[in-house]
Each structure stands twice: as structure tokens, then as C-alpha cells.
């Protein structure tokens, strides 16, 4: 039995957003593309468990998120301060993100706990509802809401602190902080 072309097209239509989510989660384009490929291999191998007419993006995001999580847990056992090293990597080699102009913002994003980061991205960028994000992350809606709030507050702190103490934020971050005021 070949894959229904309509289902195949739904999968392909989700890929751009799935990649953006993967890059936001792991920071490296190459790793993110590996993650997307692995997600698609797994999804297409188990396409029977997808109910036509239900939410294809949410289904694929759930698979990718779970793959990322299990990989992250594996690496965490190997490297204690995985979060710290990840943030350092972004700072030292912003070009590895492939998007230098968002370097400062990505570095701040990388400092968030991963559960807060994924919640913020799902709701704030991917456009999922709180309910969909909760289903993807396998937690309560209230939990997603509080993670998103904490992520926003922490991000604001990180970006403000950078501007005052370092006095060297990049252009994109300065634009964030200038906020339409003077200058």
C-alpha cells in the first residue's frame, strides 16, 4: 500500500515549521535537520497510527519533540552541564545557528530551561493553541501557560541585563530594547 498523496502533502506542508521548531530547540541547523529526518522516518513508518482528518502538525511535532527529549536525556547523562555548554557553543560560534542576526536572541533562548523554551516556541512562534501545545508536551494546559509566562519573563530579564551590563548587544537585540523609544 502506497502512502495516500494527500497525507504525503500534509507531511510535506508541515516540514518548514517542523524544521523551524527543531532549530529553535537544538540550536544547530545540522542537528535539527537530522532530527527532522528521523522524525519523518519514524512518522512514515507508523503512518497507520495517524488518524486522517486529525491534526498532522501536532502529530509530527509530538514525534519530533519526543525524539529530541530522549536524545537530550541521553546526552545529559554524558555531559552534566549540557545546558551551559550549549549556551557557550552558541556564544562562541553564532554562525553555527546559520542566522547570525538572531545570535543574541538565540543565546538568550538557549539559557531557558528546555521545557520553558519548547512551550514558548510552540505557542509564541509555531502558532499552536495552549491546548495543542499541552497535548504535544504531554502535560496540563495550566502547566504550559505557566511555562510560557516564565519563559517570557526570563527572556526579558536576560535581554535587558545584556544591554545594561555588556553594553554590546547585536543590532537585533538593540532593536528589541530600543522598543520604538528614543534613539
Amino acid at each position, binding site marked *: *500500500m*502506497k*502512502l495516500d*498523496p494527500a497525507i*504525503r502533502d500534509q*507531511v*510535506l506542508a508541515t*516540514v*518548514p*515549521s517542523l*524544521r*523551524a*521548531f527543531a*532549530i*529553535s530547540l537544538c540550536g544547530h541547523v545540522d542537528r535539527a*535537520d537530522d532530527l*527532522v*529526518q528521523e522524525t*519523518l*522516518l*519514524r512518522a*512514515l*513508518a507508523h503512518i497507520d497510527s495517524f488518524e486522517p482528518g486529525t491534526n498532522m502538525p501536532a502529530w509530527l511535532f509530538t514525534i519530533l519533540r519526543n525524539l529530541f527529549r530522549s536524545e537530550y536525556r541521553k546526552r545529559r547523562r554524558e555531559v552534566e552541564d549540557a545546558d551551559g555548554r550549549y549556551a557557550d557553543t552558541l556564544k562562541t560560534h553564532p554562525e553555527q545557528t546559520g*542566522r547570525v542576526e*538572531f545570535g543574541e*536572541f*538565540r543565546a538568550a*533562548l538557549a539559557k531557558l530551561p528546555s521545557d520553558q523554551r519548547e512551550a*514558548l*516556541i510552540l505557542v*509564541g*512562534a*509555531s502558532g499552536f493553541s495552549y491546548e495543542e501545545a499541552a497535548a504535544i508536551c504531554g502535560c496540563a494546559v495550566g502547566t504550559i501557560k505557566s511555562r510560557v509566562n516564565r519563559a*517570557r519573563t526570563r*527572556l*526579558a530579564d536576560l*535581554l*535587558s541585563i545584556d544591554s545594561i551590563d555588556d553594553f554590546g548587544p547585536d543590532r*537585533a537585540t538593540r*532593536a*528589541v*530594547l530600543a*522598543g*520604538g*523609544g528614543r534613539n
Partner: protein
Amino acid sequence: MNTGKTANVETPAPDDADKPETRDAMSRPVTHRKSEVRLGREVQARIGQQLRAMYDEVVKEGVPQHISDLVRRLSEQDDGVA
């Protein structure tokens, strides 16, 4: 600590003497708190824009050729892909 006072303010009003932080160099009340709240809200709005801009930049790249090839190849295969 920066009180906002400048060196050439010679004779501050008497009531400024014990709490100089509450007035700026022009003897206007300093309203740090209000502007911080405003900045906070402004920063939040910009964070949302920045997040979406960063994300959409990747979305705009579309489907990389190798991924499109992979999906098409797998979807032509029989059951039991893996």
C-alpha cells in the same frame, strides 16, 4: 550609584537635600518605576516579534530538497518502511 544629579547643580531645593534620587538635574521628579513597567511591556511585545521573525526566517526556506526526496521516496515504498 547614579543619582541623576550633575556637578553644576549648586543649590538644590531644601527638600531635595536628603533624598536626591527622587529628582533629576532639572528638579523634575524621577519616575523610574513607571518607565520600567512601560519598558517591560515594550520588551515583551518585541520578544514576541523577534521570536516569530526568527522562526519565520526558517519557515520561509521551505522544504530542503533532500527532505522532499526522502518523503517522496518513502511514500512510494510498500508497508514496513522501517
